[in-house]
């Protein structure tokens, strides 16, 4: 124990970085963290909306729906988010100039929409066919059976992969730093260069991401547990 503590102390002395700057500057990043959170939250909301629509379009038997849906997923999943972001922010300037923040939200939303669509589609199609048949056998219309019987079960199955996707989205929001949105990563780089303390500031950035992903993971697990009520087999 004491050896170990000693070791760390010695290490501290040898480190080329001033770790005391981490607590000192930690809350300098509050606004940037808030911006990261805003981009992510809005991006996810846009992504959920797109994802739900595209999932239904892809399941549809009508070609006018399922072909565009497949094309969208093909294009978005097959190219990097950074490219998509730059196309929106730089590429579109000849037609329309979209400010930085909305560009970031749009890119994140459109990008995640493709992944979320696949999550929803998979979840909906994983529900046993017998559920739709049972719903229809009591005279329910297809849309009503979807809404009352299939979707509640599908949402439950979609929660874990959605949580995963949200964490990816949170981290991907750092790409907005490339179009000068003052989110966490850009803040870390700027402060790091002006203070000559890159490592210290980047560690702070990392800590902020860790805090947010931890809270997000915990939130998703709470939701998962709540949704499991109907799965308990206890009082049989």
């Amino acid at each position, binding site marked *: 124990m004491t050896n170990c503590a000693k070791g760390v102390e010695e290490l501290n002395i040898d480190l080329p970085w001033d770790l005391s700057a981490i607590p000192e500057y930690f809350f300098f990043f509050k606004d940037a963290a808030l911006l990261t959170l805003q981009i992510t939250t809005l991006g996810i909301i846009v992504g959920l909306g797109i994802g739900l629509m595209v999932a239904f379009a892809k399941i549809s038997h009508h070609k006018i729906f399922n072909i565009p849906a497949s094309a969208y997923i093909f294009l978005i999943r097959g190219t990097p988010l950074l490219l998509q972001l730059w196309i929106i922010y730089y590429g579109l300037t000849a037609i329309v100039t979209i400010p930085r923040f909305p560009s970031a939200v749009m890119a994140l939303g459109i990008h995640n929409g493709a992944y979320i669509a696949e999550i929803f589609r998979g979840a909906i199609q994983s529900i046993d066919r017998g559920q739709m*048949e049972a*719903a*229809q*056998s009591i005279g329910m219309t297809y849309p009503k059976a979807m809404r*009352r019987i299939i979707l509640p079960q599908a949402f*439950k199955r979609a929660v874990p992969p959605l949580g995963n996707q949200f964490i990816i989205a949170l981290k991907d929001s750092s790409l907005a730093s490339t179009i000068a949105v003052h989110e966490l990563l850009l803040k870390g780089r700027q402060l790091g260069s002006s203070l000559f303390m890159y490592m210290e500031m980047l560690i702070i950035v990392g800590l902020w991401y860790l805090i947010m992903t931890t809270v997000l993971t915990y939130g998703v697990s709470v939701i998962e547990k709540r949704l499991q009520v*109907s799965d*308990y087999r206890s*009082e049989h």
Partner: protein
Amino acid sequence: MITIQGLNKWFGDLHVLKGIDLNVKEREVVVIIGASGSGKSTLLRCINFLERAQQGNVFIEGTKIEPRTKVINQLRQEVGMVFQHFNLFPHMTVLQNVLEGPTQVKNISRGEAAKLGAELLKKVGLEDKADSYPAMLSGGQKQRVAIARALAMQPKVMLFDEPTSALDPELVGEVVGVMEELAKEGMTMIVVTHEMWFAREAADRVIYMDEGVIIEEGSPEKIFSNPENERTQQFLSQIL
């Protein structure tokens, strides 16, 4: 009550129903037997249009059922169905399962629903399970809930698609008991089953199907003790 005329159904190249004609009277209990793959479940599923037959017609009380969504949804309210694998809604309690149809399709009032729910659960002997979720129930209890759910729509006919095939042997009795009770009350029933004693006890008519054709039909006494057709004899000798 139900008339089926010239029903033909193909799955791809496979001709599963070959010109089925069937007439089921009110209060009649018809049991369909036959080997798996004989088309008996498909026939049942064509009656409430879970499968679409390519040729032929279904008449309910003399009215021809046009294959339009609205007509089919109306038909399904009058034709209850019980599935081999129960297909209960796992995210709803027993009572919610039973009342889903009446409240969501028929829009009955809360008061009526409460009364109906209590009545139906009593009928299938599951009053104490009203607030349980399906995952907490045994197979036999699940199937009794499924029967209550179908009955909740107050159908004119009940279709049973191998209702006991997925059950442990010791649980078959409780489900068949409920079905016998229904038969006694005069419910019109078409039952696909391997439970020959149910056929003997409760059926007014037994139909033997093979390779998409009705081979023989008659009273249970006649089919079980004195089958005319060779294939019926063979089938019965294998299972009895």
